[in-house]
């Protein structure tokens, strides 16, 4: 499989074989990600980290991935202090940085920014989120977490929260449909997953169930993927309170679930998962955050041609 010098822009271009290949590579990276094994796989390689909007976790996990593989990281620094504040185009920034490094991680508030960057860069672009657009490494780390902590084949998963605007949830569903997953969508009706996406993922092989209650769905699933509901989606704060309280899980909620149920969350959480759940074997969200490191190590190794 050829990943060398490829851009990683959106999940839409990934087949199941490609995903499996990346997840296999990530598994081999895990001991290095834990610091239990040393590696100089990317020694001499330099990664530019261009974040035009803050996302500390994503940035740190890319930096960790590069450093653990013996590579170096060049950080753009704060956008206000750089030439971008003086009005330089993204295309120009990319053309300049392209000459300094071997790969570029880009986070940008505009949708399509990573696609644009890939047209001006000779080195691989890794999209670390473009506006409300794509965030493929998040989806890959979600898939990796499911594979490591549960199973991708014959998976029954419930996704709860804001399914209307959550684009990472959309691309996760697209990817899960490649594995024929049974997906239960749990959301208030105001935040339902758009119909066109539902029909798309059914056409791609997923089985879909819709409900507005976590209790109705939770006892039957292997994975519960919680997401945050943003207050600003609701014009009326009282409406928000009603919805937010309904999609909240406590120890009580979990009394009849499968013992092997895993709970995931992209973090940060607000109050949708009671902190008392953190110490149960169901809690998986901090591990999920860690798994971003081996997944990003695998991607860096692949696009830089250090592994195949």
């Amino acid at each position: 499989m050829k990943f060398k010098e490829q851009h990683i822009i959106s999940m839409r271009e990934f087949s199941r074989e490609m995903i499996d290949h990346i997840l296999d590579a990530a598994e081999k990276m895990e001991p290095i990600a834990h610091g239990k094994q040393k590696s100089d796989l990317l020694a001499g390689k330099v990664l530019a980290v261009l974040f035009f909007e803050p996302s500390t976790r994503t940035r740190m996990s890319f930096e960790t991935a590069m450093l653990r593989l013996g590579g170096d990281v060049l950080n753009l620094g704060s956008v206000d202090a750089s030439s971008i504040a003086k009005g330089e185009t993204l295309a120009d920034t990319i053309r300049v940085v392209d000459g300094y490094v071997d790969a570029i991680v880009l986070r940008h508030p505009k949708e399509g920014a990573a696609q644009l960057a890939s047209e001006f860069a000779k080195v691989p672009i890794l999209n670390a989120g473009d506006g409300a657009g794509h965030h493929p490494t998040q989806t890959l780390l979600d898939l990796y977490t499911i594979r490591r902590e549960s199973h991708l084949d014959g998976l029954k998963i419930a996704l709860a929260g804001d399914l209307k605007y959550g684009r990472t949830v959309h691309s996760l569903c697209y990817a899960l449909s490649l594995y024929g997953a049974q997906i239960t969508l749990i959301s208030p009706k105001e935040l339902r997953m758009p119909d066109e996406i539902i029909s798309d993922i059914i056409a791609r092989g997923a089985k879909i169930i819709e409900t507005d209650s976590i209790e109705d769905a939770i006892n039957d699933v292997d994975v519960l993927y919680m997401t945050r509901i943003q207050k600003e989606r609701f014009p009326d704060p009282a409406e928000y309170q009603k919805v937010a309280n309904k999609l909240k899980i406590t120890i009580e909620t979990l009394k009849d679930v499968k013992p092997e149920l895993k709970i995931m969350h992209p973090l940060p959480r607000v109050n949708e998962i009671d902190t008392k759940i953190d110490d149960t074997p169901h809690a998986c969200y901090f591990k999920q955050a860690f798994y971003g490191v081996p997944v990003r190590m695998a991607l860096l190794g692949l696009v830089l041609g250090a592994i195949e």
Partner: protein
Amino acid sequence: MTDIETELRVRRIENGTVIDHITAGKALNVLKILGLPDSSHGVVSVLINSHGEYGKKDVVKIENRELKVKEVDRIALIAPNATINIIRNFNVTSKNKVHIPSFVEDVVECINPNCISNSDEPITSKFKVDTENACLKLRCFYCGRVISENIAEQLL
């Protein structure tokens, strides 16, 4: 009709292109897509709500310029039934239907205000054209947003 009226309404052209069967009311959009009238060419005349065999239609005549079918395929986005007639010495020498292209560049503006193609970057807008289910959809190559209605309003 007086001579001058005849001249204004149905003036035949000696050499050039007649774009016929344009969806009624879309002639000005057709001119916009073709960047007409421009300074380097002959007269462009437009008939709006002309009576055709199948109801009303618009017609655009461009003198002394032979447009290639490929060149005008973008017109299919707003006038899928248009035909391109090449005129030489007052005779129609070829007649072709427009084809819906699979990709259009620099024709339409993305409806997504947060799309990178709507910012001050050195790129042109690009769209993949999807004609499935007899309904025309343009998908932005950058942000993925789909335009399916009022395409004419998004013309650059």
